[in-house]
């Protein structure tokens, strides 16, 4: 059976302080939840950099592919002389691929985000913790692992000293 110490903070500064102190004290941070975007240096999870590149790559690919499709329909599949304009009227053929490329980038970015952020898990163990409900509203929540055989008092003290408005130990 493992024990977790959960600390709830009212403000970002105290939350950051607690996370930093826990790291300094060699405590393992099991989870962090906040009602607004925060950057905690290396604490947390992996970088989100690939999302931008996935979106851009998908957008470019879709735009080039769509341009190729337009070229094929206008010059090979259905060549149509419209007022003597060239079959391959490239300036106007650029319009639809640019729009479609932007849309494809948005869709690919959204899919990458869902995968990267591990979303669509509507039932997750974290939702069993009442603290998490307030982490989407007005509390910053920090979960620290307690050492084997530890009753959690030291961790609770650390959280309280850092400014936690509420803290408790849970076992799972």
């Amino acid at each position, binding site marked *: 059976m493992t024990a977790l110490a959960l600390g709830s903070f*009212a*403000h*970002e500064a105290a939350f950051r302080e607690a996370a930093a102190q826990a790291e300094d004290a060699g405590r393992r941070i099991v989870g962090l*939840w*906040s*009602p*607004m*975007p*925060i950057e*905690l240096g290396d604490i*947390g*999870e*992996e*970088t*989100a*950099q690939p*999302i*931008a590149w996935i*979106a851009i790559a998908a957008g470019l690919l879709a735009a080039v592919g769509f341009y190729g499709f*337009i070229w094929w*329909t*206008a010059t090979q*599949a*259905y060549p*149509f002389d*419209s007022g003597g304009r060239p079959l391959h*009227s490239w300036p*106007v*053929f650029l*319009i*639809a691929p*640019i*729009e*479609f490329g*932007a*849309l494809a*980038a*948005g*869709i690919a*970015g*959204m899919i*990458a*985000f869902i995968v*990267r*952020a*591990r*979303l669509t*898990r*509507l*039932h*997750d163990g*974290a*939702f069993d913790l009442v603290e*998490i*409900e307030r*982490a*989407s*509203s*007005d*509390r910053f929540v920090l979960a620290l692992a307690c050492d084997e055989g530890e009753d959690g008092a030291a961790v609770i003290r650390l959280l309280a000293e850092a400014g936690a408005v509420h803290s408790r130990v849970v076992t799972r």
Partner: protein
Amino acid sequence: MTDAARWLLPSMLDHRAITDAVCAPLTDQKAGKRWWIAVLVALGVTGIGAIAVGVSLVYGPGMWGNNSAVVWGFPIANYVWWIGIGNAGTLISALLLLTRQTWRNAINRFAEAMTILAVSIAGLFPILHLGRPMYAYWLGPYPSTMGVWPQWRSALVWDFWAILSYLLFSLIFFYLGLIPDLATLRDRPGDRRWRRIWGTFALGWQGTPGQWRSHQRLQRTMAVIATPLVCSVHSIVGLDFAASLMPGWTESIFPPYFVVGAYFSGFAMVVLLALVIRSTLHLEGVIRPNHLDAMAKMLLAAGSIMLLSYGSEWVSSLWTGEAADLRFLQFSFTGPYSGMTYGMILGNCLMPQLFWSPALRRSVPVLVLVALGVLVGMYFERILILCNTLSIGYEPTMWTLYVPTIVDGLILFGTGGLFVLLFLLLSRVIPLVPMYEIRELAETAR
């Protein structure tokens, strides 16, 4: 006072207060009598519009004022006007995000909602204007048995891709911003059914650093893509005209001038919505007089650019010395539509100049008056672009005036009702102010 503190009432510096203020209308309060009355009125107006659309579908475009010279008329003017309003939301949200304007937080959500509703409405008009709307799907590329593909050189096909891409992209951008707030609603006490719905759309959002990092990264990436996308969408609308050879339309200034015009009319609508939302949903602590001041400055800047654009258009016509261009200019200022030309100048260029006064920038009646003036002025502009040029083109035997019919008027009236109706319904389903962004602002201000 820090810059962030200018945008929030001191009582809103607490995260709980922010959540309560924004969520209360959705979770704690029942829809009031005023809301129901507004919904019923909007529903009635929408119904009248739907009847007018039905009449048009049964009897055809002959029910409109369009004639053999002015072939575009109200349907295209309505399209350009609505898509202009629709362009502003995402542009405001994306541009202000990229330029790190903290005051965007209070207005971006409902501006984006406005975009989605206005673009959806705008998209109806080219379809109706086809005359045979049941064949609208011909615009899309599909392998038909006849082996026919869309005509990619046609402005109509450009519009199809511009509207479709922009609408879907805006929907994704809007939904992305909404996810953390839906999680807030999911976790608040309240009606179980609604919490389930919000929870499903929140996709299991927890607010971990990794999720926030991914969310912020995608939001910025989409803002970078959205800005040129928005400009391209209304540029394409401008190209519908500029790519032709008609006097008054063959202007290289049209694409940028259309983009500014769209931003201008959209911002006017955002001002009106902001005033209604802050007063009816009691969000005075989040939408502050400083926001009104900032939005009024935007209207002033855009109104001044519009004046410059009109001036450039008129001077260009004079400069060319072309008989058709000079005739067009004279017709604009002295012809039967000249009243609308002066109304356009008054609403779009002169009324926003009131905002040089700091006191008037914060005056609610003046803001309402100017925003309505801009919306009416921009509508006149859309009508004039079509009617002036098409009424007095190169061929004198084709000269004829355009007079809209009652059906034209009722369709426009109905779309106004539909916009209000959908916005009212949305106001009971989603938070119209992004809570997590306001919390960020509160942390900075503290």
